């Protein structure tokens, strides 16, 4: 039975408006990144009068964008790898074993998700400064401090998602692996991890996005040498001028790794995200 006209018209109108709303900033970002400075400083133009790719060359010179890029890549990459490995172990324990304190653990880990970041920004700042003073290990202002912080941000959600994924791998499979002589860790890495690859990919994408997009801790806990993209993009405004065309070009360039990765792995992320969320 075909849907009635009222439904089709409502759907068309709603989805058209929504698409416009979603794509408007994307259009502004792309079109403005191709305009000369006098054009982005004057009245907005829907259709650029002159096109130039110069901003894409200038962004690397106005601020050390390459360094920021490297910092973000190292920080987000390390946080992702560590977070995924730690989450795999934790989720395996929760999914396959019953032990005292299991419920306390899951509830505690999950509830840290509800705390506002601002709540532990200040104490963490104090801890890092004091560890630095006491031991000489520079956590404050270093990439290591940021990695340590970020990897815990995605951890609760990653563990939660992976528990759901591991639960869906039949127990018979790892029992069979154990009968064939695998230890518990052998069963985890030979059987469960390969079977849960889509979930692990989803978790990795989520962890990377979280770290790549974080602003608060990046702005307090970095210095000139360790600045990430989140803070670095503010460098395009000077006392007199904001180089909006360069801001837009840089925004586009820093978005490419995550948006590209996200769209490529979208299928995994969406199923992974929702498998955890709906349960």
């Amino acid at each position, binding site marked *: 039975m075909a849907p009635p006209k009222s439904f089709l018209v409502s759907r068309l109108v709603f989805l058209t408006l929504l698409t416009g709303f*979603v794509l408007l900033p994307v259009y502004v970002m792309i079109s403005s990144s191709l305009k000369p400075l006098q054009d982005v400083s004057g009245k907005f133009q829907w259709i650029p009068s002159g096109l130039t790719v110069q901003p894409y060359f200038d962004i690397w010179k106005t601020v050390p964008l390459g360094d920021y890029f490297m910092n973000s890549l190292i920080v987000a990459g390390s946080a992702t790898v560590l977070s995924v490995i730690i989450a795999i172990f934790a989720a395996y324990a929760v999914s396959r074993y019953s032990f005292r304190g299991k419920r306390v653990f899951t509830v505690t880990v999950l509830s840290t998700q509800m705390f506002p970041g601002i709540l532990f920004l200040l104490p963490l700042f104090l801890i890092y400064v004091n560890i630095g003073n006491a031991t000489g290990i520079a956590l404050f202002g270093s990439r290591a401090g940021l990695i340590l912080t970020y*990897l815990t941000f995605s951890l609760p959600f990653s563990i939660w998602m992976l528990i759901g994924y591991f639960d869906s791998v039949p127990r018979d499979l790892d029992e069979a692996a154990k009968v064939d002589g695998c230890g518990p860790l052998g069963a985890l890495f030979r059987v469960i991890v390969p079977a849960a690859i889509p979930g692990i990919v989803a978790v990795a994408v989520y962890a990377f996005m979280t770290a790549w997009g974080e602003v608060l801790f990046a702005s307090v806990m970095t210095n000139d040498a360790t600045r990430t993209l989140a803070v670095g993009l503010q460098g395009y405004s000077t006392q007199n001028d904001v180089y909006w065309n360069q801001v837009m070009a840089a925004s586009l360039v820093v978005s490419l790794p995550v948006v590209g990765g996200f769209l490529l792995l979208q299928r995994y992320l969406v199923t992974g995200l929702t498998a955890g969320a709906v349960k």
Partner: protein
Amino acid sequence: MTTTAPPRTGKRTAGRNQPGAAPRTRRSGRLRRISLPYLLLLPALVLELLVHLIPMVIGIVVSFKELTQFYLRDWGSAPWSGLDNYSLTVDFDAPVGEALLSSFFTTCLFTFFSVGLCWLIGTAAAVFMQETFKGRGILRTIFLVPYALPVYAAVITWAFMFQRDNGLVNHVIHDQLGLTDSPPFWLIGDNAFVTLLVVSVWKGWPFAFLIMMAGLQNIPREIYEAAALDGAGVWQQIRRITLPSLRPVNQVLILVLFLWTFNDFNTPFVLFGKSAPASADLISIHIYQSSFQTWNFGTGSAMSVLLLLFLLVVTGIYLLLTSRGRSAGDA
């Protein structure tokens, strides 16, 4: 097949249980089996403790101290101040308390509208896209773009669009449509609330959409077919089947959206910088400013603790209400 399998496993277990060695391996094996889950959890546990739980305890301790920048190098030596930070924070007639209270109300209002709109748009989009139609896959990808873009890149673009002199928004409403006498300011003054709301909804609704799409997949097709046989139209099916079936998903979704929106720091921070205009002064920015701009960490911590208590109470009440609603619905 079935006749060869049992002897094989039998031989293997017999080979492993050699006399003499058996009791020892069995005991250490059992010990290992009991401690293994804890070992696996250890890294996650240590990190959560170090980065979340210990800082929270320190935050609570600091909220009872007079911690200014002079004591930063050794915060333990900062003098105790008892409940001073708290009494300063909740004295709503004095400037500090008054500003906190107004920031709190702003955040509540903002959260209400943002969560409401995100939920509404996300649900509508998911319901409209439940059936396949041409272009559905592309549209779904487009709708995920706000979710995938890094916050600072997306929000900085919005900040550009809301510029008074060279932004798209004023170009449209002032130059093209002539709706205003002079181009309004969007990033300062009362309009900043609307600006923040627009950006927050743009960024937030795709998450609601994703979760709702997943919720819709769990509704069995047969229910719709049965309803169609009974003569129910599309709109009736949406009202009678789709929306009620989404209720359990809604309960989780709204809680998560509430917590994220209430605690959001990134959006106002990138949009307005370190000090937001009064109309859009969200609580997380307010606490950040109270701590890091005035270097008064004791007061900032007291505010954080109060915020946490508020969130715990709200979440508790919400969970209680929704679980009661659910059990009443089941009965």
